[in-house]
């Protein structure tokens, strides 16, 4: 894997590299170049030319996916990095590095180019302290409005007292929310509400039963995940942590995101045998996560505890048992290690294979049952078809990925388009639907479960046949990893919810200098307004459910 990853794959056409092309397109705008392990080109531009640069890259070179915005502070400057990709080919990556001065960290906002920059830049302002000029909504996003200082900045005072109660900085019941003249009603949905799947607060303005405006207020579950990682050692202290990000059964997928980035950074090989095990366990996790998504979505549309919720949980339980056999844990797996996995398949292997095969054999009948209960149900179709529409162009602008993007007809799956693990050796398909609605999102997840089952089956076949003397589960990795200072990389994997990316900059020690998590849920949640404004409350709830967000990953 790491061979593929570290290999710079510039399109060499008659000796012209991507970097040359980018520099030619940008002309004088490009000030300098840097080297990022993942990107074909990393250009430094002036803070007042961000929009020009991104417009040029998007419209002239086809970099239409602003995957992530990383902000960080150096000794002498602030820096925002715009990680750009192409939806058609995510291996085509360009980093746009925007330094800002230490005294006056002002940088132009990229929001007019990519809508997704809205939240990403708010987060950068909130946590690092860079001000974005032209930003339509320059508020804090994760922390309360009254927070003093920017926690990831260098001069942040951890001991300064903070006022954090909601009533102190934003009283939702204050008088200006009650406008006797207006026909609209302000409604707080959440942070404690049956349908918000965690602590999400959706500030909603209603016109009768119609949703006039939606403003998701996130941050209730902010757990300083990035800073936690910046204080942990690469090999031992960060590795178990990703399980806690998206904590609903997608743990191994998260672990892979970190493993991929770190292995790329430190140039670590992963043995083939371990790759197969990784692929198998990741897909088991994906099925578990999709089952949960299906069950909770049914909960949102049907009402409380219905047959379908319980059925999908029953079947998810089987996977949890398999994963427990494999990893020793049901949720917090801690199974991956840099350079491989923690241990081999459980003995006796035949029993494990049989158990997994049994599950795969029963799966089609179960999915059939789901289809009978859910997708075949006319009332369900009435509720979900043509509601929560997310047009492909809008989805791209918001950086939507995963099942949400694929249900809008965007054929984008990192497992195939930016191969890692053992995926490119196996036979499976990327599922897309063109409905762009809630119904399509459910269909995509259900079909992806089938595809994951295919992958698992092939992995099991491989593992069964694997010669006994070639079962290396970990490569040799130094006890203490100290990647060369100022090595930077941004790597993503296809998690259950979409593109889960990790940016790491090493500072020469055994802990990362900057650790940034690109959460798929964070970007996907941004589309909620597009999907639900002008629709009815029940559609807002259904759309929220169809996004399949986990607040632990949104808030990080």
């Amino acid at each position, binding site marked *: 894997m790491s061979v593929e990853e570290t290999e710079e794959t510039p399109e060499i056409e008659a000796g012209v590299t991507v970097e040359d092309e980018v520099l030619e397109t940008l002309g004088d705008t490009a000030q300098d170049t840097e080297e990022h392990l993942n990107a074909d080109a990393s250009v430094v531009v002036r803070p007042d030319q961000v929009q020009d640069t991104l417009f040029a890259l998007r419209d002239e070179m086809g970099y239409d996916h602003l995957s992530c915005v990383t902000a960080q502070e150096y000794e002498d400057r602030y820096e925002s990095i715009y990680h750009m990709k192409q939806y058609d080919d995510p291996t085509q990556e360009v980093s746009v590095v925007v330094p800002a001065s230490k005294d006056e960290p002002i940088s132009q906002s990229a929001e007019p180019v990519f809508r997704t920059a809205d939240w990403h830049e708010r987060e950068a302002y909130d946590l690092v302290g860079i001000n974005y000029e032209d930003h339509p909504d320059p508020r804090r996003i994760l922390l309360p409005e009254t927070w003093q200082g920017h926690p990831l900045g260098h001069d942040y005072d951890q001991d300064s007292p903070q006022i954090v109660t909601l009533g102190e900085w934003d009283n939702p019941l204050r008088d200006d929310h009650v406008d006797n003249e207006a026909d609209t009603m302000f*409604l707080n949905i959440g942070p404690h*509400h049956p349908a918000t799947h965690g602590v999400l607060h959706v500030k909603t303005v209603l016109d009768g039963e119609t949703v006039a405006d939606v403003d998701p207020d996130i941050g209730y579950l902010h757990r300083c995940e990035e800073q936690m990682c910046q204080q942990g050692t690469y090999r031992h202290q960060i590795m178990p942590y990703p399980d806690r990000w998206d904590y609903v059964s997608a743990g191994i997928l998260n672990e892979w995101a970190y493993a991929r980035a770190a292995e790329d950074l430190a140039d670590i090989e992963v043995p083939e045998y371990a790759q197969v095990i990784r692929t198998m366990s990741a897909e088991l996790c994906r099925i578990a996560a999709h089952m949960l998504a299906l069950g909770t979505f049914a909960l949102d*549309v049907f*009402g409380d*505890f219905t047959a379908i919720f319980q*059925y999908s949980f*029953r079947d998810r339980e089987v996977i949890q048992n398999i994963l427990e056999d494999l990893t020793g844990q049901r949720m917090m797996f801690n199974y991956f290690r840099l350079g491989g996995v923690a241990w081999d398949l459980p003995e006796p292997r035949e029993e494990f294979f049989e158990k997994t095969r049994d599950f795969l054999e029963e799966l089609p009948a179960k999915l059939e049952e789901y289809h009978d209960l859910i997708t075949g149900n006319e009332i369900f179709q009435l*509720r979900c078809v043509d509601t929560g529409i997310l047009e492909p162009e809008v989805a791209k602008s918001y950086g939507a990925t995963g099942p949400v993007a694929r249900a809008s007809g965007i054929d984008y799956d990192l497992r195939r388009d930016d191969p890692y693990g053992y995926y490119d050796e196996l036979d499976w398909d990327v599922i897309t639907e063109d409905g762009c609605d809630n119904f399509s999102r459910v269909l995509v997840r259900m079909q992806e479960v089938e595809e994951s089952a295919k992958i698992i089956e092939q992995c099991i076949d491989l593992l069964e046949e694997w010669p006994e003397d070639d079962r290396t589960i970990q490569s040799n990795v130094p006890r203490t990893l100290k990647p060369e200072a100022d090595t930077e990389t941004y790597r993503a994997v296809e998690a259950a919810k979409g593109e889960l990316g990790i940016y790491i900059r090493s500072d020469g020690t055994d802990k990362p200098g900057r650790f940034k998590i690109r959460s798929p849920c964070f970007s996907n949640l941004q589309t909620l307004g597009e999907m639900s404004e002008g629709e009815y*409350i*029940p559609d807002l709830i259904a759309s929220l459910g169809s996004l399949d967000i986990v607040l632990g990953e949104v808030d990080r």
Partner: protein
Amino acid sequence: MATEQMLPETLRTMIGLPDSVLGQAIAAFIAAFLVGNVMLAYTGVAGPWAKRKITAAFTDRIAVDRIGPFGLLIIVADAVRLLAKELIIPENADRPAYDLAPVVVAGSAMLGFAVIPMGGLGPLNIQLADPESGLVYVFAVASIATLGLTMAGYASSNKYSMLGALRAIAQNVAYEIPLVLTGASVVLFTQSLQMSEIVAVQQQTLVTVAGFSIPSWFAFVNPFAFALFMIANLAEVGRNPFDIPEAPTEIVAGYQTEYSSVYFVLIYLGEFLHIFLGGAIIATLFLGGAAGPGPESIGFLWFTAKIWGVFLFTQWARSAVPRVRIDQLIEIGWKGMLVLSFANLLLTALLVGVIA
């Protein structure tokens, strides 16, 4: 059957009270107390225990089984738990409407049972009163519940409650008309609004198949009307696919969001009583009342089985069917159910006119 003695009268003679106004009143009070308590007992079993067991059976679970045989003592535990909870009343609640609403919701359902012929149990004929306008009365008192829901939603001073109340009104208006119209199509057959008469007409034999005589229950005579009535009834009692006034995942708990402790119990009780009242109306109008195999003295058991059957149906729908959206509900109500129930009424009138 229409000439049979009503329960208060039977009780009066059994106890030996004088045939005066006072004697009748006391007897009527005792009879109402008995019938009311039986219904409350059904509700007590249905709410904390049967509902859980039924839902669990549908959803592949076990549900309560820790206390008592089959977990039955959960009823006691739940009663203690719910009544012991703190009664939280919102600061801006509009009292006394807020306090009256639970009573209205539960009370309106209880009133309905006054005219339901529940069949014989031993020497007793369990029916409290049999006015000539029985059917009209039962529809009328059942709709009072909507008033209770509106009071609850408005007086709670909570936006979710308000939304729930508005939805409850919209839903009940949209479905009460089809409900009454479909009920009226039964009256065309019976030529009477008197409940006992409606039951009596259904005792005649419709057809005899291989020695079994099928009674002319209106569910058999006019299955279309029966289906319409069952659907409209689901909307009346607010169960899936029409549990829109509560819609737990959308508007938290609708009109009952701000109710706790005793008030919550009353509202909950009212809801279940309404399901049983709906079952009782369905049994009376379409399923031959208390009729069934065996002697007339076990009629009450048949009646019980029928209302529990309807209860089971509502729980089944709740476990398996998605909820429709409020606009879709209104559309189904006004454009679908109303038209169909008018068609049903006209066709029935034509048929009855031609045959009779």
